[in-house]
């Protein structure tokens, strides 16, 4: 049994009027990559800040490594790293100096620190930029520096708050790859994002969050299994009357039909032969179509069904 290293129970955080966390719960086991997925403003950053004691919260309990977390829990803090959402570095220090400074907040020994800093630079691929000042770095490189400063002291538990926002595809893949590597080397990762694919690709488990609440948690497959829609078939007909759509609802297991431009998205609940049933219907009514394909539901469908809203990229 892996140990539970983060326990968040019924945390309530209020900013004057705004209720940012509404009885929020979260548990993270050692070795996981946990995705905290939710739309802008749902409270992801607030949750992280409460967990790290950067913010006071109104109610609830937070334990890290089995101990209550407080601003003075220096032993716990030693094992934690944070990559904040905003690039947080000294504009007046170079890449290397920045990483060295933040490492120095944890590591006193000079030699160890030099080694750690070298490894962090190597890890984020900033070797050619060590003498650069942050303002001379591109957006993607700045994000990498931000990551290096957060992980240089080799923490066991790493919080990454949307580390790929506004990052080009190249740096993005590099970053995601790096996070996987950190996890393989033994770090537990908590990763917030509002990008569905990222969460799906990277995370071993996902918590879906909205309006300060944790809605559901599980692996991608578990989440998808929770909703009624289990299959989507997209068809593009040459022409189609509205009555025909009504009769389509009579096909077995159809739960919903949605028109999106030329495409018709037919959602099925769990059942057998959905595709062949639809094809029989098409042949029966002598309909012609341009394309037809079947899709498994995405996390977006999960979010849609849970909240009635879409979580768009």
């Amino acid at each position, binding site marked *: 049994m892996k140990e539970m290293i983060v326990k968040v129970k019924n945390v309530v955080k209020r900013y004057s009027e705004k209720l940012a966390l509404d009885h929020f719960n979260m548990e993270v086991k050692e070795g996981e990559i946990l995705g905290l997925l939710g739309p802008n403003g749902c409270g992801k950053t607030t949750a992280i800040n409460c967990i*790290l*004691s*950067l913010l006071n919260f109104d109610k609830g309990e937070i334990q890290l490594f089995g101990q209550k977390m407080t*601003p003075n829990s*220096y*032993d716990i*803090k*030693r094992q*934690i790293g*944070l990559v*904040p959402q*905003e*690039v*947080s*570095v*000294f*504009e*007046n*220090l170079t890449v290397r*100096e920045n990483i*060295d*400074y*933040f*490492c*120095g*907040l*944890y590591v*006193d020994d000079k030699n160890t*620190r030099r080694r750690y800093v070298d490894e962090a630079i190597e890890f984020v691929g900033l070797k050619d930029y060590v003498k650069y000042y942050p303002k001379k770095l591109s957006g993607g490189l700045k994000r990498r520096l931000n990551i290096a*400063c*957060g992980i240089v002291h080799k923490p066991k538990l790493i919080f990454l708050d949307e580390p790929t926002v506004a990052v080009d595809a190249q740096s993005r893949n590099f970053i995601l790859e790096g996070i996987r590597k950190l996890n393989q080397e033994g770090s537990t990762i908590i990763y917030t994002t509002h990008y569905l694919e990222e969460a799906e690709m990277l995370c071993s488990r996902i918590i879906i969050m909205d309006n300060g609440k944790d809605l559901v948690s599980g692996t991608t497959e578990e989440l998808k299994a929770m909703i009624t829609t289990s299959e989507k078939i997209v068809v593009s007909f040459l022409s189609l009357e509205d009555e025909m759509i009504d009769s389509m609802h009579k096909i077995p297991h159809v739960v919903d039909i949605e028109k999106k431009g030329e495409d018709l998205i037919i959602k099925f609940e769990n059942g057998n032969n959905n595709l062949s049933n639809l094809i029989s219907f098409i042949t029966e009514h002598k309909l012609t179509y341009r394309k037809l394909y079947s899709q498994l539901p995405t996390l977006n469908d999960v979010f849609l069904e849970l909240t009635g809203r879409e979580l768009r990229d």
Partner: protein
Amino acid sequence: MTVYKYFIKVALKNKWIIIMYITIFFVMTLLNSTDAMKREESFVETRLNIGIIDKSMSELSSGLREYLEKENNIVDILEDEEYIKEQIFLEIADAVIIIPEDFDQKVVNKKEAILIYKDDRKPQALQIENQVNKFLAFANITYKDGRFELEDVKEALNESVEVQLLSSGDSYARTGVDSWFRFYYKFTGYVIIGVYIAIIGLVMSDFRDKNVDNRRKISSKRFLDFNKEMYLGQLTLAAAVTAVFIVASMLIMGKKLGEVYYIKYLVNLIVFSFSILCLTFLISNITRNKYAITALSTVLSLGTSFISGVMVPQELLGDKVLAIAKFFPMYYFVKINDSMIKSLLEVRYELFMQLLFAVVFLLIGLIFSKRAQKA
């Protein structure tokens, strides 16, 4: 000691500000010292422009007037303090002498008999004081049975010219050196305010940046240790700047150090430096805004220098201005610098005031920092 090391590093990234202030300073000092040398050579023949207001109109006072008129040029003057200060400030008059109604009596009783307004930027102005003192000294000698023998005084003054020149040479030279030190150390006050607020303020605003500070807060570095290293960094910086001034003054004037009461300048500078460090602590707890910090450094360094008598001697400033200046340590710093003392005890009040300001700045700063921590 990473925090300490990086405090110094970040400070040195702002080295241009330090270099700028220090360059201004040494250019000023250089201009002044050539000026001071010139004065020493030329004092003998200088005829000054002086104004005389004679409220006494006694025999004695006309005797003095006659003597001064012979040695100097007389300019018209009104009996109004603001007007007089303005005339001196504009260099229309080098000095203005006011002879009080009870002049004779004061001379007899050996009281401070005459009020002299003069421009301390020009040591020639001292010449007036000298002439007046000489006259009064001779007058006193001739005083007998309620009368002054003005003819004897005149004679004595004429004869004494040569003697006077010989014996005064030394004392004038000393005044020249002392005025160099006065000028030099007064201006260090200006640079210290400018540099401390700008550099330490800017560095603190980097370290207190919300995002950067959050990284510190979640780290395993204890807050107390962190602060200790920060304050050590500030102290190092302040000590280095202060030391530069002290060492430079020794290099430039080292041979003549013995001719002035050097300990006064030294102690005063160190005390002042400390009180401004405390002021910087206060400011960095009030604002993190770099524009505000840069503006404050310029405004406070120039502003307080002006109203406290760094640019213009305190005697030439209005009472109202000086009343305001008293609410800032610079006033007391300048006061000590300008004083002619033989022991630090004579300026204990001014030293105490500077330290009092330091404590007040620290306390207010602490209140602000406590409040910031809670928020």
